[in-house]
Every structure is written in C-alpha cells, then in structure tokens.
C-alpha cells in the first residue's frame, strides 16, 4: 500500500523517466537473447532506408541501424554509471572534507574546484582525452575530471549547513571524534542533493561521452556507440535514418534521467509542494 502512495507522489514525468531508464536497462541486459542481428556484422544491403527487415534501415557497411542503436546502450550506460559513481563519490568526499575541516584544506580544494569549473566541460574533456590518447577509457577519465567539482561544491555546502545543527554539537559534547561526527551525524543528512545531481548527471555524461565520440576522441569504430554512429550519420547526410536511431536514443536517455532526477528531488525535499 505504501508503494502506491509513493507512486502517486512521484508524478507522471518521474514515472515516464523511470520507465525509460528501465527500458534501457532491460535492453542492455537481455539484448543478446533476442537480437536478430549482430551489431558488428553485415545484415543487409548498404545504406537502405527503413524497411520491414530493417526498421531503421542499414548503415554504410550494411549493418542494421536499430540493432546497433539498441546495442549502443551497453557502451553508454556502464561508462556513464562508472563516471558518475567515481566523480560523485570522489567529489563528495573532497567536498565533505573541505567543508568539515575548513582552513587551508578547504581553500586548496575549493581553488581546484574553481579552476576546473573555469573550463567549459567539453573543452576540458577534449583536452584531457587528447592528452591521454583517444579511447573510451581515457574519455571516461576525462569525464570524471570534468564532473567531480560540482559534487564537491554541493557536498561542502551541505556539510557547512549541517555542521551547525544542534545534534552535531550534542554529539561533539558527548565526546565523539571528528571522523565519527562526520560519518554518523553529518553525512547521512547530506546525500540527497548529491543523489539527485548524480541521477541527472547520468544523462549529461551519456551526452558528453557521445559528444566526445562524435569528435573522434571517445569510442572508435566499429563500436556501436551513439555519438560515433551519429558521426557516421553526418558523413552519410542524405541517408537520414543512419543518425536517427542513436539521436533518439540519446534524447530518450537524457530525458529519462532528467525526469527521474527531478522527481527524486521533489520526493526527497520535504519542503516542496
């Protein structure tokens, strides 16, 4: 019964977002079981428009576009998850330390945050990836570098607020050590904005990864990564179907996580109507 109440409070957008994400997770996990074509092999004539056999047509090498699009989630989602988990945990940790310890540590960490945030994300990601060498792995590292500062700032702000709360003073008065106070009394109250941001970030990272791949710095052919596929679509401009699948996929994933994150924020924030 409680589940139904939560369901109603979630609102339509969040439910839609959840369904979209669920769809992609299911596809990612099960596609090997039911896919009629292999994403790497030729399945039909080259550059054929959508037909019964190939719902989204075929690309320049004769591979089925729809199947490649669906397989793409296996490259986008896990990377995004990895990047977000690492950057959120790392960033939050640094932010918590900065907020709690204060002083020089705080200043140093925050300067690092400011400097990193001085760059538009894609420029920095490009620069880092180029320096490390093209490839999805290096792109992931670059994306972590670009993403962690936001979490540091969020967490620091939360910690600074929670630090002044009375129950923290009480714990300190009772003799709790600094680490204990931080982990047991402050941090448990701070995680909701981080979670909300991380959820929405998942979509943004998928977008960033696709952008990097589009430029040629992320996933390399023949990987069926969405950005990469759109780059192929740009080459075959008049065969509009080649870029259609991956673009819609990215759009749906970003929307899905945005809705989910928005809904999460409303759910977790006791003050919102």
């Amino acid at each position, binding site marked *: 019964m409680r589940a139904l109440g939560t369901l109603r409070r979630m609102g339509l957008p969040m439910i839609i977002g959840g369904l979209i994400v669920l769809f992609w997770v299911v596809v990612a996990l099960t596609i090997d079981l039911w896919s009629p074509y292999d994403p790497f092999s030729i399945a039909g004539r080259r550059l054929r428009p959508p037909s019964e056999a190939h719902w989204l047509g075929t690309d320049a090498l004769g591979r089925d576009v729809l199947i490649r699009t669906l397989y793409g989630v296996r490259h986008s989602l896990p990377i995004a998850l990895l990047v977000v988990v690492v950057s959120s945990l790392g960033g939050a940790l640094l932010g918590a330390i900065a907020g709690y310890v204060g002083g020089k540590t705080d200043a140093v960490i925050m300067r690092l945050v400011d400097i990193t945030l001085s*760059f*538009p994300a894609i*420029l920095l990601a490009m620069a880092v990836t180029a320096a490390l060498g093209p490839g999805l792995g290096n792109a992931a590292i670059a994306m972590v570098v670009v993403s962690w500062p936001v979490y540091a700032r969020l967490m620091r702000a939360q910690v600074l607020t929670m630090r002044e709360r009375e129950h923290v003073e009480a714990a300190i008065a009772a003799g709790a050590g600094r680490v204990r106070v931080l982990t047991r009394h402050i941090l448990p109250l701070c995680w909701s904005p981080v979670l909300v941001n991380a959820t929405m970030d998942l979509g943004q990272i998928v977008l960033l990864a696709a952008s990097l791949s589009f430029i040629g710095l992320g996933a390399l052919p023949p990987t069926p990564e969405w950005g990469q596929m759109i780059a192929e679509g740009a080459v075959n401009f008049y065969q509009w179907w080649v870029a259609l699948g991956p673009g819609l996929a990215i759009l749906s994933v970003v929307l899905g996580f945005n809705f989910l994150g928005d809904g999460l924020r409303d759910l977790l924030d006791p003050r919102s109507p």
Partner: protein
Amino acid sequence: MLRYLVRRLVTMPLLLLGIVTIAFALSNLTKGDPLISIIGERQMDNPEIVAAAKARWGLDRPLPERYLRYVGNLVQGDLGISLRTKQPVAKDLMTRLPATLELVLAAMVVGVGGGILLGVIAARYRNRAADHAARFVALIGSALPVFWSGLLLLFVFSVLLGWLPGPGRLDARLTPPPGVTGFYTIDALLAGDFTTFRLALTHLILPACVLGWAVMGIISRLVRSSMLDVLAQDYILAARAKGASGPRVLVNHALRNAMIPTLTIIGFSFAYLITGAVLTETIFSWPGIGSYTVDAARSLDYPAIMGVTIVGGSAFLLTNLVTDIAYAVVDPRVKLG
C-alpha cells in the same frame, strides 16, 4: 559591492594561472613526452625541428624552468604552432573568432529571447496547456544532442523543405563582404549589399536556432520559476489594484523583477553556447573556433587543443565576471545597499 568586485578581480589572475597550469600539466602528459604536444609524433625524427622546439620551450631544462618559459610564452601571446595549419595558433584563433562570435550572439538572441518568451507564457498560464507546451519545447531543447538536432534540422529545412540554405556562412561561389567587424551580416549591411546580407542571414538562422534551442531550456525554466515567485508577491496585487492591465503587470512589474536572477543564467548559458558551438559549427561547416577545435581534436593537433582550452577557459572566466557586474548594476538593492 565594490569590495566584492575587487576581490573577484584579484582572484581572476590566480584562476587564469590555474588554467594555464592545467594546460601545462596536460601537455606534459601526452605519451609522457611534452615534445610530442608541441611538434607532433611525426616530426620527432626531424632533428632541426626538434632542436628548434627544445630551444623555444626549454624542453631540456628542469620542470620549473619549463613552466616559467611556458607561462612567459603565453603572456606574449604565443600559443604554439598548429600542427595542422602550420600557423601560429593565436593567429588561427583570431581569424576564426568573428565567425564564432556571430553565431554565438545570434544564438543568444534566439535562446534568451525564446527562453524568456516561453518562461513568461509558462508562468502566466501556469498548469494549463500553454504551460505544459512551453515547458515541453524547452525541455526537448536541453536534452537534444546539438550535433544531432543540427543534422536533423539541416536535413529537414535544407533538403526536404528547401526553405533554408545548406551549411556554411555563405554560398560557396560568393565572396564575403569587406571585413569591418567580421560579422558577415553586419558587414554586408555596412557595405549596402543587401543580397549578401540576406544570404548571410539565412545561413545564420538555422545554426543559431539549433544552438539557441539548447539554451532555451535552462533560461525558460528559470524565468518561469522566477516569474511564479514574483507573481505571488504583494506588489503585483497592488499594481493590479492601481488599474494596471495584464500585459503591463507582466512586463513592467513581474518580468523586471524576474529578470534579475535570470541575468546570472544568461551569463552562465554562455558556457553552454561555447560547448554547443564546438559541435554545431562542425555540422554547419561554420569556419569558427568550434570547428577549428574539432579539427584539432580529430587530428590530435596538441598545440591547437591546448590553445583553445586556455582561451576558452579564460573567456569563460571573463564572462562570469561580467555577469556578476551586470547583476550588481541591475539590482538597485545590491548597487546602493
């Protein structure tokens, strides 16, 4: 307020230095040999070029000295030589800057104008059909990958419908107008050449709209929520009690107050636009800094990549500062209080 601004101006050089340091660190990472980041892998066999590079950038010297050399060169405007164009990166950037500026400014007009319009509509017709429609349009804009929507819209409007011309700033056979500002549209007007002006404008519309749509999302969202906050205020009721009509209340009273927080977002959306410009220019064959960056990335043109990163970061920093100043100017409570 003055104190705050002074403080910001003082931290700026520090942050700039930070940007430069990161670029320096990155250039040292390239496969472990900073030489590669300056002359590229292929030239490594050429002893003359290697020697020249080592001299200019002090590559035989210890790290701290190399750093100082690097910063020194930068201050003099030396961003290195592009591996691809063989020209100084700084010169390349200057040549391409007007094209990007024209695009970004046009996109800001579309994005900010459209964003404000959508936000006001959404707030005015809160929870009704118009609100949902406006928010939907804005939402799609912020979730669309710009390089994809550009492709799609280009296909639809240029190939399918034929309403708008294809990629590029002008038709290939035309010569650009005499360069005063570098903006083809303005230069054409200044030269009295209306045909070129029209052509330049029609070439500008699509990329500006594609780019602007991306920004419409955040702007309209903020305008909507600010407007809703403001519309609930007492002075709105008082204005209506004076006999003010709906539009007057919306614009003179509500929007005026709602714009104040929106200003910061406008400045912030500049970053979005830079990000988007990088990808949009590629699709539309727009010869600006964005496509230069992509070309550099694709060919691993390290000097160019680092150069763009430094310039981009600095520009971003500058716009943030300008936004803060503008905010202080517009809100009289901050200015005089």
